[in-house]
């Protein structure tokens, strides 16, 4: 075969990489082998750029049962159970076909969970789009939300939480990150490790078509629309539901040695990875793979990314039992090969060898450590002086006042009610949802038959990350953890999705490496291990990268799920702000909306203080003192107050003069400035002194803001807005 630059471009390998393959293989690869290398050595499968950096992440802890390296991570949660979690991106497919791209993203992440032997109990979605004023972005948004809902609803797994952010930086490259959480008995957890030479390799589920060939490669190059030539994948959640039940039943039967879903790079990666983990070889015959279409070549079969397929390894004597289970669920089973002891991935086509490559060579892609350099333009934006901006007017006749500002912020698509999205997601199925979307800072699901509850949420503020990737990533971790703490849960594990531009550019590599460092530092300080994750690089078009987006998916644990609180003010009570008084306009939603600026230094973050704030809030909730808790994020204090009032259908009268003072006399900073480590808590009047004692014992800054009552939100003499107006503004932003 004459290897031309075009051929290498097709499989996205560099000439150096090609030479390395020839050298290690001791010969030139044939076309099938080259395609397999292309897929396995793509960033998506091979983590060429991210792997060296990812070593920095803290992945261990007393609860960790499975860290990164398997299909999903797992942590112990008591009662002999583990929570299994993983997040994954489907950005490129969703840019091409939003509905199916997002749907198949859900399908893939759910398979990652049940492959581990865990029953999926919750789905989350973290979404990023360009502004909704552009019709293309609206099309993407509606398509993506539709696809997520369709797939998850059909499967019968509740979609309970997520986050959405709109920013011009995502117009050409929307982000669709889907997360799934499952529960398993600790002793029933399975690994995707092939073992036992002679064992059979089964392919179960959908027939194979020409779907998504080069998908892994395609997820690792820019301009998805141009680079994608394969057939767009269409999901079949009905088939996945059967696969889910059948796989769990098969695993439960004890007759399965290993299981691996077919994701990016299809059969190539699933066989290679299972073999590599088990230190064995695998031989398969592509002629035995059931096809949806006639005339497929071995190359196409090996690289197809047809959905809803699963690789299952069984001992020959157990074949019948396992086959019977899958047949009962009306699924096709094909024996396509066997485990070998020679460490080779051997592919036959009706007995004729078409590829033979050492497994290790495929799974150990070369890695790159590059030099990063901050983009001077971004540094300049960060260093911009915001003190010269005009403040809001004290009274409306002198200019824009606080009241208009608040209503406009509530209408902002980044702040407004997410109900138009989550009402299209089934979030009550499985009858575990204790706190539904919109009810708390994190969703809470119970685990039947125990007192346990899991709190789940995704988070990442891309503006913070754009202006300072190191600090922004710390915030992402801190905010995610704060959100689960605000419902009363202890953060116990994180799964992360690194969405960045092209890492070959120093400016992007800088963002990537700084963000990972920031995540690591924050996770260490808050003592939360990262047990799984995913990298999606090359999210850029025409040399313009997306804002760095290290999405954090988090799981928190409630030992007694009855002791959770929501964010809704519960009737009359007293409201405190726990955390720093000082806030900043830097990188804030207010600055973007009112001054059209993404600039300034993001809020500072004291991780040690953050830890104490979260501990105190959790203790207050566990002791039953706290009636409601809500984290202050985009839009600052005033928006957080408004959100808790809206949810509780009660107004309140609050004083913030002390805050104005702490913020250099600026009303905008006091009301809408953003800061880390801040939580609003509401307590009953008779619990006030207990709360204060608790906050003191944690040496925390706090402020008594006022009391809830009536049907209007009143903040000093700065603003007075009826609940009705608050609701009208807040519910109009996304509908």
């Amino acid at each position, binding site marked *: 075969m004459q290897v031309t630059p075009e051929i290498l471009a097709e499989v996205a390998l560099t000439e150096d990489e090609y030479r390395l393959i020839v050298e290690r293989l001791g010969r030139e690869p044939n076309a099938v082998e080259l395609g397999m290398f292309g897929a396995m050595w793509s960033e998506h499968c091979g983590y060429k750029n991210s792997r060296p950096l990812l070593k920095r992440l803290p992945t261990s802890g007393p609860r960790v049962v499975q860290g990164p390296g398997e299909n999903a991570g797992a942590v112990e949660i008591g009662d002999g159970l583990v929570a299994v979690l993983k997040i994954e991106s489907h950005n490129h497919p969703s840019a*091409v*076909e939003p509905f*199916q791209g997002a749907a198949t993203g859900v399908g893939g992440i759910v398979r990652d969970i049940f492959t581990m032997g865990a029953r999926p109990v919750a789905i989350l979605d973290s979404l990023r789009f360009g502004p909704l004023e552009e019709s293309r972005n609206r099309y993407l948004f509606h398509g993506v939300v539709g696809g997520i809902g369709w797939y998850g609803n059909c499967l019968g797994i509740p979609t309970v939480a997520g986050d959405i952010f709109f920013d011009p930086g995502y117009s050409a490259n929307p982000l669709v990150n889907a997360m799934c959480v499952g529960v398993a008995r600790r002793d029933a957890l399975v690994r995707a490790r092939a073992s036992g030479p002679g064992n059979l390799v089964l392919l179960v589920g*959908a027939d194979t*078509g*020409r*779907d998504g060939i080069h998908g892994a490669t395609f997820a690792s190059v820019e301009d998805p629309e141009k680079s994608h030539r394969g*057939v*767009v*994948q*269409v*999901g*079949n959640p*009905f*088939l996945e539901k059967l696969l889910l039940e059948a796989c769990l039943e098969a695993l439960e039967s004890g007759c399965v040695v290993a299981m691996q879903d077919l994701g990016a790079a299809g059969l190539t990666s699933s066989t290679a990875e299972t073999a590599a983990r088990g230190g064995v070889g695998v031989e398969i015959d592509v002629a035995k793979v059931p096809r*949806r*279409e006639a005339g497929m070549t071995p190359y196409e079969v090996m690289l197809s990314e*047809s*959905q809803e397929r699963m690789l299952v390894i069984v001992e020959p004597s157990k074949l019948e039992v396992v086959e019977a289970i899958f047949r009962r669920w009306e699924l096709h089973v094909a024996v396509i090969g066997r485990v070998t002891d020679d460490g080779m991935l051997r592919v036959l086509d009706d007995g004729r060898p078409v590829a033979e490559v050492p497994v290790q060579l495929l799974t150990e892609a070369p890695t790159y450590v590059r030099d990063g350099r901050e983009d001077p333009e971004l540094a300049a934006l960060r260093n911009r002086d915001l003190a010269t901006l005009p403040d809001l007017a004290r009274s409306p006749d002198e200019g824009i006042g606080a009241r208009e500002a608040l209503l406009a912020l509530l209408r902002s698509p980044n702040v407004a009610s997410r109900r138009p999205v989550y009402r299209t997601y089934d979030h009550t199925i499985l009858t575990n949802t204790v706190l539904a979307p919109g009810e708390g800072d994190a969703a809470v699901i119970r685990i039947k038959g125990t007192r346990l509850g899991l709190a789940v949420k995704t988070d990442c503020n891309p503006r913070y990350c754009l202006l300072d990737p190191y600090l922004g990533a710390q915030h992402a971790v801190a905010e995610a953890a704060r959100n689960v703490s605000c419902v009363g849960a202890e953060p116990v594990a994180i799964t992360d999705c690194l969405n960045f531009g092209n890492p070959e550019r120093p400016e992007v590599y800088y963002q990537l490496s700084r963000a990972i460092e920031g995540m690591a530092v924050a996770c260490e300080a808050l003592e939360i291990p990262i047990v799984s994750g995913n990298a999606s690089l090359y999210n850029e078009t025409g040399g313009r990268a997306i804002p760095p987006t290290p999405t954090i998916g988090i799981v928190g644990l409630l030992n007694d799920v009855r002791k959770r609180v929501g964010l809704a003010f519960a009737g009359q009570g007293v409201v405190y702000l726990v955390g720093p008084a000082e806030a900043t306009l830097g990188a804030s939603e207010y600055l973007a909306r009112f001054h059209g600026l993404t600039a300034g230094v993001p809020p500072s973050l004291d991780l040690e203080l953050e830890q104490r704030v979260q501990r105190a809030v959790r203790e207050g909730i566990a002791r039953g003192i706290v009636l409601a808790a809500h984290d202050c994020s985009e839009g600052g204090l005033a928006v957080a107050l408004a959100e808790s009032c809206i949810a509780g259908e009660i107004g309140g009268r609050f004083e913030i003069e002390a805050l104005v003072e702490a913020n250099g006399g600026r009303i905008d900073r006091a009301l809408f400035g953003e800061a880390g480590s801040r939580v609003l808590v509401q307590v009953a009047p008779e619990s006030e002194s207990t709360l204060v004692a608790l906050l003191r014992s944690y040496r925390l800054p706090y402020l008594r803001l006022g009391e809830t009552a009536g049907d209007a939100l009143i903040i000093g003499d700065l603003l007075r807005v009826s609940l009705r107006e608050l609701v009208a503004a807040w519910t109009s932003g996304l509908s």
Partner: protein
Amino acid sequence: MSSTQGWRADVYVALKPGVNDPQGLAVRDGLHRLGYDEVSQVRVGRYIQVWLEAPDETTAAARVREMCERLLANPVIEEYRFQVVRIDAGH
């Protein structure tokens, strides 16, 4: 506007060949279950009727083609065809 006439476009949208069609598979299996073993394949698409005004058939067809490209079909996974028929005023 100069004198226009009433038209109805019957638009047929189907998945491109090769694209996975779970709906079609399910319907095929459903038909098999009912005993229609002679059925080898089923594909499920959309049938969209559009009533519109246009001065002549050529214009009507050109407009409908545009609507298909922009809204009625998703060119990434679907293909379409249509025919335009003259209708009496007021259909």
